[in-house]
């Protein structure tokens, strides 16, 4: 059986572990905060979403570079 494709994708899969852990921790902290103090949800939601966007940015940049860099 022959396998075709780019090793970049395996590297990207490994790289995505980092931001996956980051996103998981952000939402764990957010859920924790809201569970302890439900009225803080409106304050915490933008912070959690911005943190999620920043952490996920790494995974997205990784995906782009996996496609772009030396296929």
């Amino acid at each position, binding site marked *: 059986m022959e396998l075709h494709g780019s090793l970049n994708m395996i590297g990207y899969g490994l790289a995505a572990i980092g931001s996956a852990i980051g996103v998981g921790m952000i939402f764990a902290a957010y859920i924790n905060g809201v569970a302890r103090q439900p009225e803080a949800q*409106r304050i915490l939601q933008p912070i959690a979403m911005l943190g999620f*966007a920043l952490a996920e940015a790494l995974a997205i940049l990784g995906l782009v570079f996996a496609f772009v860099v030396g296929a």
Partner: protein
Amino acid sequence: MTAFALPTATEPYVPPSISDTHLPEVLPWLAEYGTGFGKQMVMIILSIILIVWFFKSAIKNPKLVPGKVQFLAESAYGCVRNGIGRDIIGEKNFAQWVPLLFATFFFVLLNNLFGAIPFLQLPSFSHAGAAYAMAIIIYGTWIAVGVKNHGIRYFKLAVVPSGVPGWIMPLMVPLEIISNFIVRPLTHSLRLMATMLAGHMIVMLAATGARHLIMVQESLAMNAIGVAVIAGSVAMYFLELLIMVLQAFVFALLTAIYIQGALDADAH
């Protein structure tokens, strides 16, 4: 590798690649410059027609006790207005941003859901160009909001964090410039494009893989795996539906967060 050797097939399996999302143009006008009129553009026009038709017909003769369609439209509007607009931008000046958020959310949502409708089966935003256009509109909007509210001082407010000791500034300011003005619009668009493209790739992979396993492979076990792939792709379909709605929500939510950040740039 011999342990994994498949029975000799008459034709080799070719996995779908990213170039398979480029369908032939409907109107090949200037297509060599990438400006042809393709399926994505047809679907974007279709989505606008559908959204306008749905909400117009839903509120054509409004009743005090809403019917099913009116209830759906009203609760969808209320979800965007209260859940995204009022909660994020704040009680004081959210009302003027509701039209933008509402249009953004439903435009992205319907274009994502096209990926789940048979025969259309292609999310418009699986093409990076469509997602870039959306993100550029939002990018221009929140910069304009910041400059309008704070003048040219907005750029200083946006990149110089307050309450940080002076010696760390040479490190913080370039980081803030990169993260706010370069990475932010890129990730805003590519997050949508990457998830939609991944969903579309799963559809293509399941379809071509199942076809290969059932039609080309001769052994019965491989055919059975092909049937299992089709069954598994149904579960992936529902996961994709969830992701499509979630990504439209995240896109609109980030739009609201960026606009709120520009409005209250001096608050923190």
